[in-house]
């Protein structure tokens, strides 16, 4: 099959995809890199010349930088913890024999298909609203004062919303991994005298470790850039301004392109560090 003729045909057929993606990646990235070294304020005089590393230094030194980093880390970490722990438990439960497994599966997966703006708005208004939200009714029912979720417990609220969206993803992938576990391995460990908890610790969890790693990496990449959920709930106030949102505000709201671009480069570097780990796992799998 690998004859000369087919090889040159193959190169030709690959070209459009490669050229498009190369352009898509390089052109904007080079522009961002360029802007990050300029004093570029479109509403206040436009391009005011060379800035050196000023933007990079100012971005890091600004009072909103470190809070945005910690906000980002709390959201990413919180969502990861929740989705992994509940994802593993849910995957193990769904793997058990039961009636109506297919329907339960569908119920669990459903939130993944809800567009981010819808889920954010539904949670914000119909659950977390301090007057008319279901949570407020629930709190009152138990005699407690309703919580103003999105201002008093803003980070928790965002974490709840985002976890709800991503739990299906984690569950689905972990369920696939659980189902690929060789039943004979479990039976062998049972013969060797392992109790259920030991079987979980010594057989199931190690078997899942690869899937968990992949879930962590992929979710991290997507969670680092969550946008719509914050955009429609708090608009970045009440301590919910993530790195992504901060850059967005610098670029589009205060129109400080130089500063925003420097932030963008930081975000690109951060994402790349995580992407390298993910690529390694995916790449290894390609060889197999």
């Amino acid at each position, binding site marked *: *099959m690998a*004859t000369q003729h087919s090889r040159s045909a193959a190169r030709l057929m690959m070209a459009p995809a490669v050229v498009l993606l190369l352009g898509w990646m390089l052109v904007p990235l080079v522009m961002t890199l360029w802007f990050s070294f300029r004093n570029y304020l479109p509403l206040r005089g436009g391009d005011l010349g060379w800035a050196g590393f000023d933007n990079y230094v100012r971005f890091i030194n600004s009072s909103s930088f470190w809070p945005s980093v910690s906000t980002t880390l709390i959201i990413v970490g919180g969502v990861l913890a929740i989705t992994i722990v509940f994802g593993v438990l849910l995957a193990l439960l769904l793997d058990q024999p039961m009636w109506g497994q297919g329907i339960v599966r569908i119920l669990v997966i459903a939130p993944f298909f809800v567009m981010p703006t819808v889920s954010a708005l539904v949670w914000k208004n119909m659950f977390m609203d301090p007057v008319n939200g279901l949570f407020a009714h629930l709190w009152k029912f138990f005699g407690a004062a309703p919580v103003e979720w999105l201002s008093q417990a803003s980070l928790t609220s965002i974490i709840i919303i985002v976890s709800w969206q991503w739990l299906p993803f984690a569950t689905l992938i972990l369920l696939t991994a659980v189902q690929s576990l060789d039943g004979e391995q479990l039976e062998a460990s049972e013969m060797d005298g392992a109790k259920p908890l030991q079987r979980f610790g010594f057989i199931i969890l190690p078997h899942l470790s690869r899937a968990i790693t992949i879930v962590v990496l992929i979710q991290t990449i997507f969670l680092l850039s969550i946008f719509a959920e914050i955009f429609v709930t708090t608009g970045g106030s009440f301590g919910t301004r993530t790195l992504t949102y901060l850059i967005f505000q610098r670029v589009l709201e205060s129109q400080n392109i130089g500063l925003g671009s420097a932030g963008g480069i930081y975000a690109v570097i951060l994402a790349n560090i995580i992407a390298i780990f993910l690529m390694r796992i995916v790449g290894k799998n390609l060889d197999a």
Partner: protein
Amino acid sequence: MGQITLKQVTKKFGDVEVIPPLDLTIHDGEFTVFVGPSGCGKSTLLRLIAGLEDMTSGSMDIDGMDATSVPPSKRGLAMVFQSYALYPHMSVRKNIAFPMRMAGMDQAEQDKRIEQAAAALNLTDYLDRKPGQLSGGQRQRVAIGRAIVREPSAFLFDEPLSNLDAALRVGMRLEISEMHKRLNTTMIYVTHDQVEAMTMADKIVVLRAGVIEQVGSPLELYHSPRNVFVAGFIGSPKMNLIEGEEAAKHSAASIGVRPEHIDVVESGGMWTGTVGVAEHLGSDTFFHVHETGLAETITVRTEGDIMLKHGDTIHLNPRVDLIHRFDAQGLRIE
């Protein structure tokens, strides 16, 4: 007609030379088997003949016409793959019809040939099934049916039986042999199993690392292996190969004795040793004998009713006229 001639054919994958320059002629109507350990280049050689790989250099004729750069679809050869390679979305009938459809044959002729092939291969009841609904042996038959209907000048088989269980393999072996006798078409058959090679071939080509070690009829290879490799590869159980002093006695670097050419005697004999494992097959018994004073374990094949056990002393007498002698390069000494 189906005479295939390879002249100075080579194949490189990158910098790795898989097939060094090689010449081979396969005569019309001959059943030729390429045999050798895995990675010896036998499948690559078959794929070069099929045209599925480009030759790095050299040329190939089919019936005297140069076919070196003819694409596989135009060579007039049919191939049966190890995985059968049936088209999963087509019924058995459509699978078998496919090469005729590609050739633009008229429908009536197609139907006639399908009926004939199906009858010959016991597939008549399965013509409307999909390959996924068939057993391994049936899929194998469909693959053969697909090859037969186009009446190729030669059939190429790439390890066709290796995915079948042992009992089916023996049955299919016979069917393919009978098909060859009936059609009298050239067949080239690749296998790593020397039993298949011995039982089916008119001509065996033994390959190692892309090099032809020997070409000959099964009995030629059995009786006069050209070197140590062929001697060890052909025959089951394997030939005993003995080096050192014992070989020097026969003025050779190594000698070979087939297990069936060693007699078990009451006393005396050339070698005396202890029975290790005794494998009783009923018809035959294999003794693996240690402590004969030789470095090698000696395997002996005897009739089934010699009842020696593990640890018993055994006296062995090889038939001196059937001992093969090899020089330091491993080549046969006549």
